[in-house]
């Protein structure tokens, strides 16, 4: 099996959310359902120094996240129906819509907020890494839409060889929970 995964160049990300929109458009998702999300992190404040001027230590950065098709997906482990499963051929985690009962338990078991409930279907939906596009030799929607080329999808071994092993940044839960197939080039303010 060749496990697929994501490389996210957080240092480059400008938070434009083109990836979110491209994903939403490709999957025709309703309002509120976002397989990919961009989180913004801000910290610091303005303080007045003794001369009466204001100084600041503001830091801000973005993080684009979808499903990380983890090695130990808690959503799969805890799904009561086996609808949530990991494909043998490429390790992509998908939902079998014929089996899903819409209990939303996977929502409580994903550190990354990947499973997204679709009210109209009454079932869970999520990022499938655009396997249909990959099979046609095309690029997944988020990767193709990013104007700064901050997203790359491919075999995780190759991505790790190219970009390293960082899969935890400030604001993201520890990778030890589910072992995500994710490599991040960390923004300067997001190093732990």
């Amino acid at each position, binding site marked *: 099996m060749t496990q697929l995964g994501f490389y996210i160049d957080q240092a480059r990300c400008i938070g434009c959310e083109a990836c979110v929109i491209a994903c939403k458009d490709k999957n025709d998702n309703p309002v509120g359902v976002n397989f990919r999300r961009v989180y913004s992190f801000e910290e610091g404040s303005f303080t007045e120094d003794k001369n009466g001027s204001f100084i600041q230590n503001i830091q801000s950065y973005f993080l684009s996240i979808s499903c990380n098709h983890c090695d130990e997906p808690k959503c799969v482990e*805890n799904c009561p129906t086996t609808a949530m499963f990991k494909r043998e051929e490429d390790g992509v985690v998908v939902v079998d819509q014929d089996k*899903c*009962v*819409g209990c939303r338990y996977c929502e409580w078991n994903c550190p990354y907020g990947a499973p997204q409930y679709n*009210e109209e*279907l009454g079932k869970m939906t999520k990022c499938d890494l655009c396997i249909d596009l990959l099979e046609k030799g095309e690029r997944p929607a988020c990767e193709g839409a990013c104007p700064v080329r901050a997203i790359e999808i491919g075999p995780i071994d190759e991505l790790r060889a190219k970009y390293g092993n960082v899969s935890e940044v400030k604001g993201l839960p*520890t990778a030890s929970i589910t072992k995500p197939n994710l490599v991040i080039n960390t923004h300067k303010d997001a190093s732990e």
Partner: protein
Amino acid sequence: MNEWPLLIFTIAMQAAIGGIFMLWVYQLRCKDKENLDMFNLFKIPLVIIAGFSLVGLGASFAHLGAPTNAFNTLRHVGSSWMSREILVTGMFIGLTFITAAWAFYRKKVSPWLLLVTALVGFIDVYCMAAIYSNSLISPWNSIHTFMSFYGTTFILGSVLAVALLATALYRQKMELEAKQFTKVALIIAMLGIALQVIGTALLPVTMTEVNMIEASAITELLSGYTGMVTLRWIISILGIALLFFLAVSSYKKSFAALSFIMLLTFVMSEGMSRYVFYVLGS
């Protein structure tokens, strides 16, 4: 708060489980009284407890987005606590109905069926709590969840038994029996309250760190519900005071009415406690 069906499901099932346990406790105490018509005493409680379990079952279906796929939830018993809980809940409901049907058919109560049903019920409470404590929602990820759920089971079970069984004993002029059983119920309800108090005290030290993206800290989540948490404990204390009054005073004129008021008081306090529980996770 979007989890009303789960709130109703957990409260109704735990009341039913506690209720069955209390019926077993009562029959154990009356083992030697051969002239006691146990069936006559137990028939209404058994029907009402079965009714509670059906309310729970209905609420659990209301939680599902695709209820027609409900049987699929039994496919992952090997790894999913939700699957296990659904299986054990089904067994408890089935056993409750068998216990009731046996009693109506044979015109006598089977202590063994009551015991097995209560034990399956206690396993069910464990599975229910494990669903939440195994999730990544950090306020649930603690021993507090188990103590809160078992606490509710003992509290609602004992007050349900007082409202249903002790009132029936009064009606049959078995006043001493009624009073003694209410005292037992008081002790078990106090045990439930103690479990919840200890669980609440342990929550801050046993909770895991935040392990979901964009999760809020528990103090931040709770800050909007201080009033509700305070009110829940005040109502619980009033309920215990009422139960204490019913257990020790010789006033028996309005026993039935007061016991139902006490039942409602505890349903309200446990409902509020569970409401806050779900707010922490959603």
